[in-house]
């Protein structure tokens, strides 16, 4: 039974993730006053890459990178329940809590670093360095916000946190929400924090040496991971969801906010991004934490 549940979760995350990615490209196009690609364009891209031949070889560790990323994304997804009520789409959430998820969030990037490091491309190494530097700065405000939320609601269980909100945490603790949101924009790889994969600076960074099926794997991975992260944010700050419609609505609103930021802002340099993340959202998070515990 649980296997079917997990598979269904995966399918839903895959489909919705790619749908969101297609919408992302279309909406960004509209921001730039273009017609934009069809909604299923990202899906077509990934399938096409599955049909391509591999021509490069950098040893097995190189190929393990995308695989570790993929498993990181899938594990994250499995530990996040989709709904706060009911038995379906619960995944493995009764075996793990928010701490596990916070740990799994960084598994993907680290695995990718191992893989890309062995491929000889200097741009890959540069992208990874940028990514890990940013990751370090990005996690601080996010962790502060999440741990504050956990201690405020007295539980580390995602479903409990979600269902215990009478007013949404986003409105009850707006400062925490803003801090988490800023680093969430970075986690989604959006401007102004999209330093690791900047196409004109490091030639798509970590992905620069991957081709064909591994690139397709990376694309699917990011689609699934995106959805998992959106669901996590919805549970932590927007009161979770009790049905598909609610879940899609909430995640989509969150997603629109994120990509609107991405479409509007230019890219930071790496030191600027780290500086900004360590100063602004961290301060906001700390102030939010103090205010929340005070009252």
């Amino acid at each position, binding site marked *: 039974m649980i296997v079917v549940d997990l598979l269904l979760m995966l399918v839903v995350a895959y489909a919705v993730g790619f749908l969101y990615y297609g919408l992302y490209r279309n909406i960004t196009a509209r921001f730039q006053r273009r017609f934009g690609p069809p909604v299923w364009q990202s899906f077509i891209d990934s399938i096409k890459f599955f049909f391509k031949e591999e021509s490069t070889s950098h040893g097995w560790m190189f190929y393990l990178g995308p695989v570790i990323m993929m498993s990181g994304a899938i594990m994250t997804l499995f530990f996040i329940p989709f709904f706060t009520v009911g038995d379906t789409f619960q995944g493995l959430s009764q075996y793990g809590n928010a701490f596990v998820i916070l740990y799994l969030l960084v598994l993907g990037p680290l695995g990718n670093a191992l893989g890309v490091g062995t491929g000889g491309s200097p741009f890959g190494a540069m992208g990874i360095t940028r990514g890990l530097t940013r990751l370090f700065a990005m996690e601080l405000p996010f962790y502060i916000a999440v741990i504050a939320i956990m201690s405020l609601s007295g539980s580390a269980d995602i479903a409990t946190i979600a269902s215990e909100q009478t007013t949404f945490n986003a409105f009850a603790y707006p400062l925490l929400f803003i801090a988490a949101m800023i680093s969430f924009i970075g986690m989604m790889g959006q401007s102004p924090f999209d330093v690791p994969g900047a196409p004109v600076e490091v030639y798509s960074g970590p992905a620069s040496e991957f*081709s064909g099926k591994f690139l397709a794997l990376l694309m699917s991975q990011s689609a699934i991971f995106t959805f998992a992260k959106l669901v996590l944010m919805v549970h932590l700050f927007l009161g979770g969801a009790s049905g598909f419609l609610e879940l899609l609505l909430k995640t989509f609103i969150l997603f629109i906010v994120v990509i609107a930021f991405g479409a509007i802002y230019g890219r930071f340099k790496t030191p600027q991004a780290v500086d900004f993340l360590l100063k602004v959202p961290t301060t906001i998070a700390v102030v939010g934490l103090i205010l929340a515990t005070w009252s």
Partner: protein
Amino acid sequence: MEHNGFIQEQKTLEGDLNSDTSHKNSVDFLMNWFRKRSIFVLAYGTGCGAIEMPPTFTSRYDAERLGIRGAATPRQADVIIVSGYCSYKTLRRIIRTYEQMSNPKYVLALGSCTVNGGMYWDSYNTIKKLEDYMPVDMYVNGCMPRPESILEGFIALQKEIGEGKASSWQKYEENYEFYRKNQEAVLGKKVEPSYDADWYLYDGGL
């Protein structure tokens, strides 16, 4: 209302795309369909033609609505655009880049310079016929072709891909001796450019 003309154009372009019927079986058809609807173009420009590509890919002509999109590295790209004259030095890099791309890969050649030398027909340092040195799927002539004609060229290429006719990468593999011979005739025995850090640091630069 103001978008009507635009949507009409889109329909005409896509109608052209969808009109192919000559496929062997449904798997082939699907594969080719995915390939033609998603084309990653290597961001690489030679000659004057590189200046016509930014408008093709950005807001004014927006090639992304046809699934055509830029890729940063040759590993991810499907199409390389040779956009104008190739001097010997450039040709080395083009060949190297082309060989780094993974199959299936296609070549789009822009401008009369790639067709027959164009206005550089009597230059000692540029090649005259690109298809002697690497296979070419589609030529777009003009000096320089406007973004409209580049889009037309892309549509024609997509059509060929959809019908399974664009197979230049196979041609390159089968006739490698021929291409290599021609390459060596103009570039000397060592066709590939040297690509080490010392090329930049210790060789006096450039």
